[in-house]
Structures are given as C-alpha cells and as structure tokens.
C-alpha cells in the first residue's frame, strides 16, 4: 500500500492528538472527561480513516447524498469556517479566563493591605 506524504502527516498528527487525549484522561487531568475523549477519538480517528482509506469518503458521500466536486469544495469550506470559529471561540474563552484571573489577583491584594 502506497502512502502519500500528506497522508502520513495527517495520520501522525491525528495519532498525536488521540494520544494526548488518552494521556490526559488516564493521567486524571481535571478537565478531561470521557465524553471529551470520545469526541476527540471520533473527530481525529475519523480524519485519519478518511485520509488512509479515501474510498470511505465516496461511500459516505453516497450515503448522505453529496455528489460532485463543487459540493465537496463547499463542504470543505464550511468545515474550515467551523474550525476557525471554534479556534476563535477557544481564544476568547482563554482570554476571558485570563481577565478573571487578573481581576481576582487584583481584588485579593486588598486582603493584604
């Protein structure tokens, strides 16, 4: 079986992401739940499967009714926008947490006065 470079890169990346999820879950990291782990495995596992066995996407496309290149391009674009939105919301969430931490630290300084 011949693998293209992009397939190797994506499969390796998906394996790292799944490994990180398993490590966090079994390492008892506070914010890692089973549901999160399952979501991670489905998303990254699905991506690795589609990249390794591209004909799977044909079966899925037929199954859900996507036919033709233009539909695939639109779907890919939609997924890309979704991913960007997800990253953006994650960044905002992180900033919100940092603002809260700073606000808390500043208010707790009153305790030491």
């Amino acid at each position: 079986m011949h693998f293209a470079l992009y397939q190797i890169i994506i499969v390796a990346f998906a394996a790292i992401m799944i490994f990180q999820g398993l490590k966090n879950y079994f390492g008892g990291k506070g914010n890692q739940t089973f549901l999160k782990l399952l979501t991670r495995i489905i998303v990254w596992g699905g991506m690795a499967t589609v990249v390794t066995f591209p004909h799977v996407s044909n079966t899925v496309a037929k199954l859900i009714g996507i036919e033709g290149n233009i539909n695939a391009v639109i779907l890919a674009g939609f997924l890309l926008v979704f991913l960007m939105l997800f990253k953006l919301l994650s960044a905002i969430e992180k900033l919100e947490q940092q603002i809260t931490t700073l606000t808390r630290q500043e208010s707790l300084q009153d305790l030491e006065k």
Partner: protein
Amino acid sequence: MWIVLPAYNESKIIKDVIKEIQDAGYQKIILVDDGSTDDTYAVARSLPGIIALRHKINRGKGAATKTGIEASKKLGCELVVTLDSDGQHNPEDIARLIQPILNGKCDVALGTRLKNPKGMPWYKILANHIGNAVTWYIYGLWVSDSQSGFRAYSRHAVEIINTKTDRYEYDSEVIREIYLHKLRYSEVPIEVRYTEYSMGKIQKQGFVNGLKTLYKIIWHMIS
C-alpha cells in the same frame, strides 16, 4: 468559618442581608462585589467587621464566589459557606447546612431548595429539574439542586475543587468537581425566600440566562 457573599448591584439590600447573617451568629463575612455599578462596595465597606473585596469589572457569580473562597483560604478557613446576597437564603439554615461537615460525614454540603420548595414558583422548580438533568448528563452526578448557591465546603474540599467557569455554570461545575474528585457530599434542605426584590433582578438566572448557562456548559465540555 467564613461566609462568602458574591454580590452584584445589591446596594438596596446588602446591609440587611449582612445584618441578618451577623444576627444569626456569624461574624466572619467576606463580600465580593462583582464590579457593581451601584454603591454595593461602599455600603459593604462601611459595615463593621466585613471584609469587602472588589472585582473592578463584572466577571460573574462563579468568579466572585471563587474569589471569596480564595480569600477565605488565605485567611486560614476550616469551613466556608457561600450564599446569595439577594436575601433569598435564610442564615438560620447555616447551622443545619454545616452540621454534616462538622460531624465529619461529608466534604461538601449542598443546600437543596427542591427538598423544601415551599414558596418556590413552578417555573423555577421546572428550570431546576432541567438544570439537574443537564448537570447529570454532562457531569455524571445526580443531585437534587445543582443550581443552588447556598453551599458549605470543608478546607479539604476548597483545596481540591478547582473551577474555571465564571458565571452561573459555576454551580454545575462544582458538582463535576465533587464527582471527579470523589468528594463526599450531603444534600441539606434549605428555605428559599423569593421576594419581589430578588425576582425583579434582571441578572438572575432566568430563561435566557439559563440558555446561556446551558451553552457554556456544553462549550466547556467540547472545547
């Protein structure tokens, strides 16, 4: 034992709420003003024996509660009680709430409105049931009142519980922490006093805020 009061725009009532707590025999009170636009902070500061802290900007009930708990840890607490600052909780219930912790039976005592729902509007009861179901489904632990702000924590519990959410989803996140860290908990029936004042506040956990809380809980799960 320290009493933690997160407060946002409660200047009309905060003096009475604090007096009622003091009259019930609890003098160690930390009020966290969560960036109020009225003079809640000034009123609290003017009261004797109160530690008043202030968030310069509004960060939410969960964030303010956590700030109060952090302050009580710094002050060497052995027990922390959190309650809402709109007067809906009866300070006379504190003694009953902390009893299971004092007896060494649990680490967290959850004040439970649904075990004593007298005076509670039907839609609040319904909203609480929905909140409980969502909390159970997402965080894995069924409790009778996942949205109650009237709770007591042992020192052991406040050292372990590490919340990240800032707003009303905080109450459910505490349930997750109890579940994840296998903390012992007890549910204690409490009285609720839904007054015209508390029901009229727009920042309370209403329907729209309830949806926001649900969105936040789901977001924290997938992000």
